[in-house]
């Protein structure tokens, strides 16, 4: 039953993600742009659930919506320029930027559709989460990127606190 409904769900979720993204880049009011960003994140989380990686969907919701989006909203409120009359939202490269983006999309779409990808369909294993956990700390798998990422987070934490500190 679910297999015949997947394309419809896919279209709904990707429409959410893409409309949210369009709202981010086209909306003048910065706060609304942040809310459209949240909508886009939720759409992408739905796409992850469709791809049967629920743990990444939850991580996406937790980190992107729960931390990054809120951080962005806080900084928007702390740097309120919205009320000034000379507020201009776009710079002079607006048309050039649009042309570049559309052309890039055309090239990418052409390439993606004309290549036959070597796909191999299989079912996701039952203990995918346990395997993910083991993969992150196994010495012959991905322990090095994991440890480096944790050092990166520590550096970012200390750096952000120092940069944003009141003198």
């Amino acid at each position: 039953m679910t297999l015949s409904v997947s394309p419809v769900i896919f279209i709904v979720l990707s429409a959410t993600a893409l409309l949210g993204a369009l709202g981010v880049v086209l909306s003048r009011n910065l706060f609304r742009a942040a809310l459209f960003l949240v909508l886009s994140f939720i759409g992408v989380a739905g796409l992850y659930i469709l791809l049967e990686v629920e743990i990444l969907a939850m991580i996406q919701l937790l980190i992107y919506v729960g931390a990054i989006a809120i951080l962005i909203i806080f900084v928007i409120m702390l740097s309120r320029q919205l009320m000034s009359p000379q507020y201009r939202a776009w710079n002079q490269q607006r048309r050039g930027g649009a042309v570049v983006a559309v052309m890039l999309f055309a090239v990418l779409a052409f390439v993606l559709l004309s290549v036959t990808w070597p796909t191999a369909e299989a079912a996701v294993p039952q203990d995918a989460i346990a395997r993910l956990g083991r993969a992150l700390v196994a010495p012959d798998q991905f322990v090095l990127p994991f440890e480096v990422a944790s050092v990166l987070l520590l550096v970012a934490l200390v750096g952000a606190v120092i940069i944003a500190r009141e003198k």
Partner: protein
Amino acid sequence: MQVPLSWYLIVAAALFCIGLYGVLSRRNAIAILMGVELMLNAVNVNLLAFWRHGEVARGTLAGQVFAIIVITVAAAEAAVGLALVIAVYRARRTVDVEEVDRMKL
């Protein structure tokens, strides 16, 4: 009918290009950062789509781990970037990137 791989890739490409337009055309530093986050999301969708349609059969988890690392890096980058925006706002009272084009005060 399963959703074919190319659909996911098209959506990821579209998301990436929309984020690119956001980065290229906005004046507000925070809006540029939001565009960057969109681009990173597009990359993640790409990675996980390839994992689901190719790697599951081989039993490796590189796609998922890569996606988790990308999310981590995005969080770190957003934190430091927004701290910089706050620092710039305190010094120059503006977050318009067209107006902070001088190193000297």
